[in-house]
């Protein structure tokens, strides 16, 4: 198999950079993660030609899953063009000859992402791979991994809920902006990587498989398709997403495409004024294209 891949790729590296045994191990971890939704499966995170913390966990998942027929999209905080996304895409193009890449969410079959899930609803033939810095949501309340494992096993998340209680006491609402602890399939609570609250509901009953890879912490976990994902909350203080209202209570719109139902990034101008733009660059482009088409119709 190795010889075949070498001959195909025509360079010194195996297809997908990792050797086949490494890929196999990652795939086995993925299967286990899918079988036990939300459970953090340990795996032997390999050395990658980049620093841990730069998406090595996600990259190993992507490289283990990718085949020549795959169409890949790489995003970093919603953007296809940021340094991290561009470098990762180049690396994968280099080590996986024949793989095509795209920036279009509609076209891709595999998405490696940092900090965002695309706005466009995903389909059942797509897989999302998220890069994870801190896989364990309990790390904020319990330093010992041994005890954390027991707490996960017994679904003992009361100390996490106390954090939420303390937040409401101090600030009248839950102030976790990203990495919102989310209960998967009624048992394990995961750290859904630093996606904003806006993206948390997308985990619930998602048509696409969502995989999480932590390279430094050596953990893989998954939200399988059509699986329940509930953000932790109180029955009388429900979870809510960012509302992007201005001081008059109006929903802000993207200054580029005018969209009012996407996650917005805030940009501060030198003058001190703030502008808002869609965080998902492909979504923004699509909205502009749509607007142009509808404008063009009457003419």
């Amino acid at each position, binding site marked *: 198999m190795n010889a075949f891949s070498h001959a195909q790729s025509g360079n010194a590296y195996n297809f997908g950079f990792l050797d086949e045994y490494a890929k196999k191990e990652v795939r086995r971890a993925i299967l286990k993660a899918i079988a036990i939704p939300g459970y953090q499966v340990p795996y032997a995170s390999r050395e990658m030609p980049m620093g841990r913390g730069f998406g090595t966990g996600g990259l190993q998942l992507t490289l283990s899953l990718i085949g020549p027929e795959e169409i890949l999209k790489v995003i970093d905080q919603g953007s296809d063009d940021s340094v991290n996304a561009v470098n990762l895409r180049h690396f994968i193009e280099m080590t996986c000859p024949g793989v095509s890449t795209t920036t279009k969410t509609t076209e891709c079959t595999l998405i490696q992402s940092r900090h965002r899930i695309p706005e466009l609803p995903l389909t059942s033939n797509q897989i999302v791979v998220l890069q994870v810095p801190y896989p364990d949501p309990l790390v904020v309340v319990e330093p010992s991994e041994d005890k954390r494992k*027991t707490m996960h*096993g*017994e679904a*003992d998340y*009361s*100390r996490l*809920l*106390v954090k939420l*209680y*303390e937040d*409401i*006491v*101090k600030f009248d609402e839950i102030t976790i902006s990203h990495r919102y602890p989310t209960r998967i399939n009624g048992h394990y609570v995961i750290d859904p990587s630093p996606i904003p609250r806006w993206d948390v509901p997308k985990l619930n009953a998602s048509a696409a498989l969502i995989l999480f890879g932590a390279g430094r912490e050596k953990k893989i976990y998954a939200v399988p398709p059509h699986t329940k994902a509930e953000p932790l909350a*109180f*029955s*009388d*203080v429900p979870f809510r997403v960012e509302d992007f209202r201005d001081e008059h209570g109006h929903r802000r719109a993207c200054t580029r495409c005018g969209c009012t139902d996407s996650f917005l990034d805030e940009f501060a101008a030198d003058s001190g004024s703030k502008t808002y733009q869609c965080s998902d660059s492909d979504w923004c482009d699509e909205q502009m294209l749509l607007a142009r088409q509808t404008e063009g119709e009457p003419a």
Partner: protein
Amino acid sequence: MNKILEVRNLSKIYGPGCPLCLESTGPEADTNLCPHCGSVVAIHDVSFDLFEGEILGVMGESGSGKSTVVKNLYFDQAPSSGEAIFYDRDKQHDLFALNAAQQRWLRNHRFGMVYQNPHLGLNFNISAGGNIAERLLMSDLMDYGAIRERAKALLARTEVLLSRVDDLPKNFSGGMQQRVQIAKALATQPPLLFLDEVTTGLDLSVQARILDLILEIQQELKTAMVVVTHDLGVIRLLTGRAIVMKYGRVIEAGLTDQILEDPQHAYTQRLVASAL
């Protein structure tokens, strides 16, 4: 009266243990350290019954194994051998045969513990209200408003100023910390409460108020309690029955008045004589 707890032949040995451990330790040997293998026989062959709404005293000097008894029953430690049966309404739980999750469930729902050192019972990095909320959340109450109301009611009941509900326990006085601990232990209205040296180290007026509080709670809620203390005053005030321990063994058991007025064992006689 219904039995709530039945403890039989409870033993805890720290160390490897050897066949000579038991005969070479205890009150007669005047040590709990086995001279042959170096193991500490913390408790051996402790048996007692506890009935609904009753307060049982466990007294003895430091190192006699008093705290080890309640730590084992509250699952802080696992005993070396022995049996304890908890009668919960119409159900029976063989405490040491349960798995970790079942033990945690009992701990959170049906038992309460107040430690001598508030650091063990409270999380000092979250507010007093949060500490009580933690216990309520453990017992699956998920309504913020209801949790808040319960926390306030409990703190009011244990005479903690309501204006301090959201303060950190580390900014509280020792007596207040102890009252927050009691409130936390009572949060789920447990039928069984363990009190480990609750008043030790507090000044006399604060001691008196906490003891009053414990008595009132016992009258109101009919909570059964195991009170561990070396303070004979506390034993006399709170408990109906008591056991006296020395070097890990129970040397005397009976009605508190009887033990204090007419001690049978030489050690108990010395203990009572020295205190009164």
